[in-house]
C-alpha cells in the first residue's frame, strides 16, 4: 500500500470514482451551456441574468465548480507526481493549484449566488 497525503480521495478507487463522476457533471454543464448559447436568438445581459437567476442554475453552476475543484485536484496530483520529481517543487505547485481551484469556487459562489433576474 502506497500512502499519499496530497490527493483528494480516501483510496485509489475513491479517486477513480470521483474523477469519473466529476467528469460527467462537467460534461453535462458544458453541453448545457453550449446549447444555451447556440439556441438563444440573441445572448443579452437580460437573457444571461435571467438564466442565472434560477435556483436550479445556481446549484448546477456550483455543482460544476465543485466538480472542477475535485477533478482538478486529483488530475493535477496525478500529473505532478508523474513529471515533477523534486518533492519541494511538487508540493509547492500542488499547493498553488489547489488554492487557485478553491478561489475559483469561492469567487463563483459570490458571483453566481446574488444574481437576480431583470
Amino acid at each position, binding site marked *: 500500500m502506497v500512502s499519499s497525503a496530497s*490527493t483528494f480521495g480516501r483510496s485509489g478507487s475513491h479517486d477513480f470514482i470521483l474523477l469519473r463522476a466529476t467528469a460527467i457533471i462537467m460534461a453535462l454543464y458544458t453541453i448545457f451551456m453550449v446549447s444555451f448559447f447556440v439556441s438563444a436568438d440573441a445572448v443579452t445581459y437580460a437573457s444571461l441574468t435571467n438564466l442565472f437567476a434560477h435556483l436550479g442554475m445556481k446549484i448546477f453552476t456550483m455543482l460544476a465548480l465543485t466538480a472542477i475543484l475535485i477533478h482538478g485536484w486529483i488530475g493535477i496530483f496525478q500529473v505532478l507526481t508523474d513529471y515533477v520529481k523534486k518533492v519541494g517543487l511538487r508540493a509547492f505547485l500542488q499547493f498553488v493549484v489547489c488554492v487557485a481551484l478553491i478561489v475559483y469556487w469561492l469567487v463563483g459562489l459570490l458571483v453566481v449566488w446574488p444574481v437576480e433576474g431583470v
Partner: protein
Amino acid sequence: MQKLNVSVYRYNPDVDNAPYMKDYTIEVEKNRDMMVLDLLLLLKEQDPTLAFRRSCREGVCGSDGLNMNGKNGLACITPLSALKGGDKKIVIRPLPGMPVIRDLIVDLSQFYAQYEKIKPYLINDDKTPPARERLQSIEERAKLDGLYECILCACCSSSCPSFWWNPDKFIGPAGLLNAYRFLIDSRDTATEERLNDLDDAFSVFRCHGIMNCVNVCPKGLNPTKAIGNIKSMLLKRAI
C-alpha cells in the same frame, strides 16, 4: 555474403564517463534470417567486451529482454526479419527506464521489488489442509490461463510510461498480471488483504490503459486486461 549494420548501446561504468552507441558491421550469409540473440553472439566474437544476458535461448527464461529497433522483446525469439524497419539498420539498446549495470544488462531490483509486494504465492488460511492436494475444477483452473505463463522478462513494465515515472510506487504490468493471477485463484483465501494492499492512488490506478505492455509481451499476454479486472474488483468493493 551480406553486410549488416548494427548499432549497440555500450556503457561500462568502470571505464566510460557516459553511455554511447557503438557501430558494428558484420558479414552474414545472404538471405539468411537469424534471431537477434544469434547476431549478438556473433558480435561478441568480434568484440568480447560486449555484455548481455541470456540463458535458455528459446523464450522461456526471460533473461534477454532488450529494446530492438525501438521495441522491447526477447532477443532469442525475435528474428531480424521481424524488426521494425527491417534489418537495414539494427539498433539494440537495454530495456528502457531501468538502471544500466553494463552495456545491455540492466538492474531489475525495482522490478522484482514490485513483484515481491504482490505476494506472488498462494495464501490459504485453511486450518485443516486436505490430505493430498487442493483440487480445482476445470473452470477454476482455466481462469489462470493467460496469467501463469508470465516469465518476468520485464519487457512490459519497461515499456510502460507509468512505470518509468513511478517505478517505486506503481506495481507495473508484470506485477499486476501476477497479482490478478493470485486474486482469482480459487485456492487463495487472501483476496481481501490483497485488494487492500493495492487500493491506493499508485499501485494499480496509475495504469492509464496505454497498452504498451500488451504490444510488447513476448508471451502474448494481456496485462491491461488483468489490470482492468483488478480495477473492477476494487471498484465493486468500493461502491
